[in-house]
């Protein structure tokens, strides 16, 4: 292999560095109008009257829509959301009306001129209160109009194995507690937006900032049907994405609104959020509360794990409501635990509704699990690293959830992390400073995650007449480097130079189906599909070579003799019949694998042209392949099933120093060791991991969408703080363990999400080691930490 493990310049680098990449915010269509949305001013209220007359009179306004003058468009996997709300609003950002106008300012002015009269209703903002008897109902009827009696969402994820009560009674040591994680924003550099446009046949094209172009096509086709546009099709085109982080996993009200506005006006309509709107009107990551108890025997072997999760979903369901599907992974399968109880309650409230974000439930659960494990280690008087090693997952094991773990480098990750942190000398050291070290591990899907019937990715490969490879994939490049991985794997698997691999824009009309770029699956599934396609394509080339190679070599020799009459004849008889499997293709040259005679090398483009223009019928070199990983759709009620083809493991370690007067936490060092199966592009892998660590640091220490009775108080970067280069200015030691996963493309596992999963508990554990107090709710702000330190000191005196 020539390119695996190297970092050729990524294909999108120059365009992005020079500002030429076209993001949705850059996109313009001829005759395009601009949409603006009027959002609710109440968390829960009946809509009594909407008066759009003033807005309609504003010059430049082309349409004003409400639920009254448009067909009902339902969305969400629970069908509990409407593009334009009818009857009542359930959260501050509910869409009540929208405007299309000739420029964004007029649209905004007109949206503001719409008058809405409300009757406020009692609202509920705390998920526990929402579950209490008599709590206001966020949805009083289900999508079919049947009465609903509780705010519990009709979604269940459970797992029970062994006998937890018995195991708890028999445990030598038990630790338990409650942990909570905040609403946080994905803070994509590129904010959300879309353009919807109908052609004269009323087929729709949507330029969408999405990670799921094909599921979006299905959703938009559903909307067309609801609008009475039968037998029409939606085409989804994906522009350059300035980050996705889960925000593109669902289709959004603003997209349906631009479709409705385009339909009303007959013009392309763009809805583009600015930063403030992104903060206020795009769904953040769920907040969750996790009750966790774990026990061990005298030797530190885990005996049971008891987990109960309450997740505040806000007013509607997004795919993010299925976080517990991924929470099940660490809950059942991080470290070896024989007896497990996992249950969760997903609750509707009048808070902003939440959606997916990188890690998908895993960071929430792992924060509780790994914090609790440190407490258990302390209870049992066992070193926290040792406790993890005693219970470490090993290769070729089947976990209680039925995860079939083939490769597993967790032991090495733990050992390496401890070594890099100088754990044995630093952990628990009473050195008179407020310094400490902590660690935490992770398990995540490494071979895609099956949460849908198909977990597949398709690929179409095509050579043009010049031996350039055109690759169409349904996978979405959102900055994570998917296109670089495709180039590298294509170059090695097919035998062309990486810069001869051109990746087509993701477009449902030209690209093959892909379930979506989530679950760290992009490179894993797309590269696996690519490997299948590569075999087919090479086979096509070599079968053409069987017929055409002799004549091409003949020509080459003729030319060579012209230049140099004394050139020696090739050592090999090229005129004899050669089998297809005798050929090889490397760097765009077709040759015989058993000779390195340069005259016997034929340019791939020449061979393709010869095949194309052959007398009596030419041919093309196009193949497709479809890869669906060897995994199972779990039974969620039982929490059973091998949801991924393989699993990614890792450990992170942190050294911190706490300022005990101010509560400030300074990170002195981080170590991250990740079992990645195999490194495809080291530069991108480092970038993905360090970026994820920074997100993990933000989650641990800074980030929180603050709300007051459902209203977001900090919808801006002035008061929503994310780490910058200054906060990340400490040594980071990265180490990649290569376990060569058999199901992975060239042995690689998915690594998109895992880097942020264990960061927060590693930091929390390091702080506890430094100063003996443990913060149970993220973010660990100086204010919280100082209050905890003072409480501890008061207790001591």
């Amino acid at each position: 292999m020539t390119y695996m493990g190297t970092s050729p310049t990524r294909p999108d680098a120059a365009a992005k560095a020079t500002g030429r990449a076209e993001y949705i915010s850059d996109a313009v269509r001829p005759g395009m109008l601009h949409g603006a949305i009027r959002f609710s001013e109440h968390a829960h209220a009946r809509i009594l009257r909407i008066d759009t007359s003033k807005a309609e009179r504003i010059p430049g306004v082309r349409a004003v829509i409400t639920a009254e003058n448009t067909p009902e468009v339902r969305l969400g996997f629970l069908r509990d959301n409407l593009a334009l709300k009818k009857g009542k609003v359930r959260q501050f950002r509910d869409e009540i009306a929208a405007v299309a106008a000739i420029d964004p300012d007029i649209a905004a002015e007109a949206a503001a001129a719409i008058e809405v009269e409300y009757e406020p209703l009692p609202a509920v903002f705390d998920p526990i209160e929402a579950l209490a008897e008599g709590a206001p109902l966020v949805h009083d009827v289900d999508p079919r109009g049947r009465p609903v009696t509780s705010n519990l969402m009709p979604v269940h994820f459970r797992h029970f194995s062994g006998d937890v009560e018995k195991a708890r009674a028999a445990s030598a040591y038990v630790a338990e507690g409650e942990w909570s994680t905040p609403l946080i924003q994905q803070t994509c550099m590129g904010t959300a937006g879309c353009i919807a446009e109908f052609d004269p046949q009323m087929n729709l094209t949507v330029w969408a900032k999405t990670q799921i172009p094909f599921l979006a096509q299905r959703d938009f086709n559903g909307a067309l049907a609801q609008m009475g546009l039968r037998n029409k099709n939606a085409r989804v085109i994906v522009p350059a994405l300035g980050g996705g982080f889960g925000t593109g996993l669902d289709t959004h009200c603003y997209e349906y609104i631009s479709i409705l506005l385009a339909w009303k006006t007959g013009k392309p309509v763009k809805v583009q959020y600015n930063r403030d709107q992104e903060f206020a009107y795009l769904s953040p990551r769920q907040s969750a509360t996790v009750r966790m108890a774990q026990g061990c025997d005298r030797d530190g072997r885990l005996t049971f794990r008891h987990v109960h999760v309450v997740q505040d979903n806000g007013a509607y369901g997004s795919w993010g409501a299925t976080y517990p599907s991924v929470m099940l992974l660490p809950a059942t399968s991080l470290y070896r635990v024989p007896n497990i109880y996992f249950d969760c309650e997903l609750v509707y409230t009048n808070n902003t509704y939440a959606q997916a974000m990188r890690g998908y439930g895993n960071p929430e659960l792992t924060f509780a699990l790994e914090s609790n494990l440190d407490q258990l280690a302390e209870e049992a008087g066992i070193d926290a690293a040792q406790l993890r090693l005693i219970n470490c997952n090993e290769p070729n094991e089947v976990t209680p959830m039925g995860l079939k773990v083939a490769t597993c480098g967790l032991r090495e990750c733990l050992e390496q992390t401890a070594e890099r942190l100088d754990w044995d000398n630093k952990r628990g050291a009473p050195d008179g400073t407020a310094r400490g070290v902590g660690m935490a591990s992770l398990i995540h899907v490494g071979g895609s995650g099956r949460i849908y019937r198909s977990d597949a990715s398709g690929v179409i490969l095509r050579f043009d007449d010049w031996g350039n490879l055109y690759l169409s994939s349904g996978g979405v490049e959102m900055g994570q480097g998917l296109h670089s991985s495709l180039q590298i794997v294509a170059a090695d698997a097919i035998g062309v130079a990486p810069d001869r691999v051109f990746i087509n824009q993701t477009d449902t009309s030209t690209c093959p189906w892909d379930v979506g770029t989530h679950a760290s699956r992009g490179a894993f599934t797309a590269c696996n599909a690519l490997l299948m396609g590569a075999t087919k394509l090479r086979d096509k080339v070599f079968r053409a070579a069987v017929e055409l190679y002799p004549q091409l070599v003949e020509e080459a020799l003729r030319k060579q003799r012209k230049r140099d009459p004394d050139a020696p004849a090739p050592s090999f008889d090229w005129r004899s019949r050669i089998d297809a499997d005798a050929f090889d293709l490397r760097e765009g040259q077709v040759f015989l694998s058993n000779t390195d005679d340069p005259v016997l090398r034929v340019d791939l483009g020449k061979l393709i042209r010869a095949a194309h223009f052959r007398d009596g019928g030419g041919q093309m070199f196009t193949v497709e392949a479809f890869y669906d990983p060897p995994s199972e759709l779990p039974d969620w009620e039982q929490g059973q099933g091998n949801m991924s083809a393989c699993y990614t493991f890792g450990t992170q370690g942190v050294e911190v120093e706490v300022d005990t007067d101010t509560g400030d936490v300074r990170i002195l060092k981080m170590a991250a060791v990740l079992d990645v199966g195999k490194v495809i592009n080291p530069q991108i892998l480092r970038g993905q991991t360090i970026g994820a660590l920074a997100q993990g640091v933000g989650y641990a220490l800074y980030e929180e969408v603050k709300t007051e009775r459902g209203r977001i108080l900090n919808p801006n970067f002035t008061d929503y703080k994310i780490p910058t280069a200054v906060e990340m200015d400490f040594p980071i030691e990265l180490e990649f363990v290569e376990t060569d996963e058999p199901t992975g493309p060239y042995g690689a596992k998915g690594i998109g999400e895992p880097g942020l999963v264990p960061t927060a508990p590693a930091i929390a554990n390091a702080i506890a080691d430094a100063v003996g107090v443990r913060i149970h709710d993220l973010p660990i702000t100086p204010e919280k930490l100082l209050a905890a330190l003072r409480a501890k000191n008061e207790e001591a005196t």
Partner: protein
Amino acid sequence: MHPLPYHRPTSLEAALELKASLPGARFIAGGTDVMVRLKGGAPRPSALISLRGIAELTRSEVAQSARLGAAASVADLLAIDALREGWPVLADAMNQMASPQIRSSATLGGNLCNAAPCADSAPALLVHGARVVLRGPQGERVLALEEFFAEPGVTRMGADELLMSIDVDPPEPGLQTTFLKKKRVAMDIAIASVAAGLVMNDGICTHVRFAAGSVAPVPMRLPATEAALCGHPPTDARIAEARRIAEEEVSPITDIRGGADYRRRIIGVYVERATRALAARFEGSE
């Protein structure tokens, strides 16, 4: 945003005339407060009058004393060696403002006229007893900076006046200073800040200045805290007393950035830290 009438006068007189003739107009210098507010939906002025084209306002003179042009950018001021050397606490405070990008646009005058409790330059200037020079149709007048701030977002500058310069006297002989700022991340406005100045003679604090930001409606001096130390050696007991007084002397509020109790606590910690750090600088020399 709809376009807003924008004027860029090149003389003080023209600027003042425009201001008088355009009711509801607002001055703009670096725009790093004005534009953020406008985008955030603040009431729109009728016009913007830029002060960046007026040479008198962007020029600074720094020698024994300093006259700092109100419309000079923070980055330009930070580039003046004599300013960094003579008034290091001001340089420290300006260096902790925002980011390099913002500092290259933001002005010192804008920071003060914006009258935010968190204006970082204010505590440092208060420690030096700075004065502001205002200019209106009636001519110039000078105010102590302490008198300049009225309430959050409001100064004692008249609607027909503008800020010309900030004047700072030569530092007290032997003055040692420091600026401590509590923020959530590197680029953040202060949750609480303390600027301190100290002169010690024969082990006694003979000149003490404390000023604090983000812990009262306006940036403030801490006279009671100063009095607790002035005339005394900085013993543990004295410092503890100063710290206690400082915590009482401020009147912070709880907002999204931090709680009132926490802010008080930080002021106490910073008064103690500043005093110890500054006192230590006198140790070798005596």
